[in-house]
């Protein structure tokens, strides 16, 4: 018997190996299914895709605050963008100030692009994804942040 020959496996021990192997494979598959359970297929929270109406409704250079949705929609020459009006510090609703946004709770201040200029806020106000729905209405998806400066062109 040379060393290159495969080691001899008897029929009996082959059966043991295969049955044990398939047992652990079944266990593994079941575990994979079980660990998938805590991940819900759909999150039970409210919808955060807001339809804001047809784009013609907003003139160039305008800004429109949507209080219920907690965001401000801007339109400039380059296109639409939306900035969340929820303070990144503790979640108060920021107010529009002379040169940007100001949070009434702890005095965080942001410039008109949402960057922090003062106060305890750790992050700039997020820019939200703007798109259009199939019927042409502007849609802001408050769950999707986009990099500052992203515009949506109609």
């Amino acid at each position, binding site marked *: 018997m040379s060393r290159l020959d495969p080691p001899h496996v008897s029929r*009996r021990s082959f*059966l*043991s190996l*295969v*049955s*044990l192997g*398939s*047992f652990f*494979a*079944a266990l593994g*598959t*079941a575990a994979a*299914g079980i660990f998938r359970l805590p991940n819900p*297929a*759909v999150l*039970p*929270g*409210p*919808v955060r*895709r*807001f*339809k804001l109406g047809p784009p013609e409704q907003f003139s160039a250079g305008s800004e429109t605050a949507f209080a219920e949705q907690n965001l401000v929609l801007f339109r400039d020459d380059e296109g639409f963008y939306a900035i969340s009006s929820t303070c990144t510090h503790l979640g108060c609703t920021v107010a529009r100030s002379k040169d940007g946004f100001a949070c009434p709770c702890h005095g965080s201040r942001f410039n008109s692009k949402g960057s922090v200029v003062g106060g305890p806020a750790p992050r700039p106000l997020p820019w939200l994804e703007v*798109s*259009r*729905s*199939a*019927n*042409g209405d502007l849609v802001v998806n408050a769950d999707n942040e986009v990099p500052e400066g992203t515009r949506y062109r109609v």
Partner: protein
Amino acid sequence: MKDPSRIYRWLLLVASVVTIVYLVGAAVRENYLAQWRTVQHEYRNILREKATDDRGRELLAKFRVEMKQTTIPALGTVDRCVTCHNGIDDPRMTDMPQPHRTHPGHILDKHPVDRFGCTVCHHGQGAAMSFNEAKAEDVFWDYPLLPPELTESTCVTCHDAERLPPDQIPLLTVGMRLYREKSCGSCHKLGGRGGSLGPALDNEGAKTKHQLIMTNLKPPHTTWSWQNAHFRDPGGVVPDSLMRNPTVTRQEALALTAYMLSQWKRDVPESYLAPDKIEQKYRALHPAPLAGEEVYRGYCTACHGNGTYTRWDKKFNRFIPAIRGVSLISTATREYLRANIEQGRPGTQMPAWGSHAGGLLPEEITGVVEYLRSGAPAVPAMTALTLHGDDSNGLSLFLKNCAGCHGMNGRGGMAPEIGNPVFQQAATDEFIIRTIRNGRIGTAMPAFQRNDAPAFSDQDIADVLAYLRTLGEPKAQKAMAQRVTSRTPPGGKP
């Protein structure tokens, strides 16, 4: 000799392989073969075909095959209908087959899916992931998917049906009209107004199939199939029903069904209510009085017809009087009519209609009394009867001449109960004397003192009157009250 553990190894192998096959099969079924995935792949192909411009390409690029849902905490709904109905707000999909088609009409313009969801109007199980479960007709779900033609009944949750354009709610418009025309209010209360022979209908639409008797119906057992069949043949659906067959066409039955489904005191946040609904709620607290004739048509005709004839009712087992008949109207005073309407006739099927019971306003009852009397001829003044009656002679006259119809002790039979407390309090002596003298035309009540052949002398009438009044005395009234309370319920065998 065989190894004894061999059989266990085989068993373990077979069991493990079966488990793996089952688990992998379940994973494939859930992740690749689910109905909604197939639908979304189909929809993506449609999007691809229609992606001829920038907008189309943008929509195609954004489309993901994934579970989609609309959660609306204010309404307490989680609707996944949009998982399959992907084209619901895409105007390009009007010619596509379901479930890809655009929502019909312009309803979504004012009722966007992300604010209203789907089940608030259509009912059904919103969280379901297959059409059969979403329809939820045969599973334990209180409000299954409404058929398209009945969906209009849920508009009333937030709108006043009277103010919606009739072409938007064709069935409800007919249903509301029929409810008045068929005088359903004679027996049923709606908004606190109506009779008490049938159940109040204020929350009829909130009923689930478990609250209705379905034994006489073919499946599917839905509340609307029950309503529909019931309007066609009440007694065939509910065997002991007192309800008269409303004699409606198939379409009218459907309209009444839609109207019944719309009767639902549903709690939705104020922000969802249309202004007209809020006005309607306010008006319901301060109703404007209806004219007498309208009240009569809405609340009296189911039993009294047009009021000019007497009718024997099989289910009530008694005569229903002609309340606009000339001989009653020329005899009865306004106060008598008013008392009978306001307080009803205890022991008969005539319920009380005063604001504490039937919900009619005092001025409406005045209006009805005037309407009843509108054809009344001028009544010649009656020669006063000054004779003193002897009630024992009255009793013997009553037994000979009256008890056959009016019953012993005035308990009533075919004819009205003379001992009835409302009658005793409201009927004046003059009313009773006139009735005995002239009879009641159109009924079995004969005239006892016609000029050519007087059966009663004035003295006889005075005696009978004296006897009748003893029936109004407390002792007789107590016996009457006991009899009324121990009486079999309406519709039971007398």
